């Protein structure tokens, strides 16, 4: 029983995924285009916040917003982009609002790394993102 409690006590730490200097400096930065799940990734790939794990999505193509949240919104990431990502290499600013996750900054400049028919891959020093095409 104690082992179970010890494991459970670690869960919130994994879920919130504290920001690390390791990730901040971009050391060990993973290639975002290798991921497939829509969601948010710390640059080192240690912290993920993706659709399969979070149960609710919200997208507003006109306002260029995308949000992932859990059932009581104790954890969410809401991204608002300044323009529609349409071309690889395009630089886009994004404002991030979040709760229950701690590896993010509120404002980031992202670069479009990949686009396919349904998804867009964006990369930055602070967070990598895969979103549905607006």
């Amino acid at each position: 029983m104690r082992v179970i409690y010890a494991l459970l006590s670690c869960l919130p730490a994994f879920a919130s995924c504290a920001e690390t200097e390791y990730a901040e400096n971009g050391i060990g930065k993973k290639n975002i285009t290798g991921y497939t799940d829509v969601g948010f990734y710390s640059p080192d790939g240690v912290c993920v916040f993706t659709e399969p794990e979070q149960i609710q999505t919200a997208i507003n193509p006109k306002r260029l917003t995308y949000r992932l949240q859990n059932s009581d919104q104790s954890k969410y990431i809401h991204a608002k982009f300044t323009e529609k990502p349409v071309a690889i290499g395009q630089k886009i600013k994004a404002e991030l609002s979040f709760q229950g996750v701690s590896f993010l900054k509120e404002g980031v400049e992202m670069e479009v790394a990949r686009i396919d028919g349904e998804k867009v891959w964006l990369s930055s020093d602070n967070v990598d993102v895969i979103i549905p095409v607006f």
Partner: protein
Amino acid sequence: MKKNMYMKVKAFLMFVLLFLCSIGTKAQELGANYNENIDYPITEIEMLKKSKVTWVRGFVNIPNLFLQNENRKITGVKESAIKTHIPTLKFIQAKKALGDRVKFILSLKIPFELYADTVPKVGSEEMEYIFRATEALLQTYQMAQHIDILVMGNEPEWENVVDADFIHADAADYRAFLNEFANRLAAWKQANGWTFDIYAGALNRVSELTNSKTAPAVVSVVNSNPNVAGLDLHVHALNVSQAENDFKIIRNQYGVTKKLICTEFSMVRALNPHVADALGAWGTQNGYTSVMKIYEYLNRIAEKASAGTPVSAEEFKSLFESYSWYPKNWYRRFYAVFKKYDTYAITGRFSVVPGGARAVYTATTEMWELGGIYFSRYLGLDADGFYNPNPLLYPDFLEARDGLAVSSLIEGQRELFISWGNGADKTGVLSVTAKDGAEVVRQPLNSEDYTLVENLAPGTSYRVALLKSSDNSVLWEADVKTKPVAGEFPLLKYQQVDGYTLVQLLNLPADVASCKLKVDGQEIDIVNKTLNGQVLTAEVTYEDGSVETLSTTIRK
């Protein structure tokens, strides 16, 4: 002119005061008490759903778990113990699993008898440690957001005393402590948007402890501190008339007009002296011996239940009802008192959890377990794997529950969902009145099983009443408060309530023009018999013409 304005303001304040003071009339709701502490996880989620209770109560021992104690003095706060206290997480998970129809009560057990100076002085370091531990507990795993009632103590007449005669209790300091505690809690509520109500208590056996100085101190805080919503009473009675006496004193002698709740009640003290009584003639007539003692019988049937061959409910019931001392139908008689004195929430012992009870009874064991609604320990499990009910209480519990006018009442941010119980007159009319006295909704029940009220303001108090259609007399009423908007982004939520699936959209911004709910692309209502499909979506259209689509997979 100024005087005229003063009179208007005064009249308005009087109305508001009367509105607040009258909260909770005629709305008795049944619940389940998980006594002792929240350390034993609430695992009986499906049983709680099946029982249709609407409250769950647990308590947590603040000094034992969360305070550093040296030489009978509080010396600090165990911050990391609070933040990693998994039973807190389990308590919250149980609340989430049960949904909005079940509200949670958390009682804080703070036995000041542990300390050399009993109740610390306001402003002392020791008292600040208690407040800090409480604040941290409320912040951990969003405890504060998941409870509806916080009780600031647990039987202080017993846990604060310095002498056994209850006369020398540290009443003045306890009164000061409660006032300061309530004010701190109110400040935290204001700062964090927490909405739970603050109660004092729980006072146990009020009519017996007439010399207690703690009871009047607690009541004075309830009556005078506007941050305290009500009083918690425990009725552990020696005779069945004690429940009436306890409530009568509180309402009539102490003049408490605020809400009352009862989070523990039992007749255990009437049963305990008989734990070693012989079975007598009943024993020989039912395959036991006449000299077998009750505690031996309980051990024997516990073994049978454990082996999968429990005795019948009829046998169990007939034993206790063969004794003249057993207070038959005490549960029903207590419930009549709760109803008479407008007891807002009533949480009796729910179950005897396998492994959670004393392993073997002796001639001195207290028979708390006989006060549970369910007990697998003695009567095993039913075909669905649920605990068999306690035949001494269960019929009375069902009678009380099924006589309720309201089975479930869900307070959303902009809507109320009321599932009517068997006690409701479905030819009646639902009336919803705002704080200023204006009736904002009036709609007939039309013999429907539920009523949905929409377009209410978030975070707002209303009086809800079921009126007799012929003369508008009040058949049932309750004061409710819609939930406040708790975030800046919309959230889609669905939950099961009494055979219906309620779909809600929370946190809608002010610039929303319209909303649509859909399952697999087909538009649905807020209330549905079932959600037949895989993907639930909400289309939120804003005034700028943009549409946000929220989607979630439906989990059965």
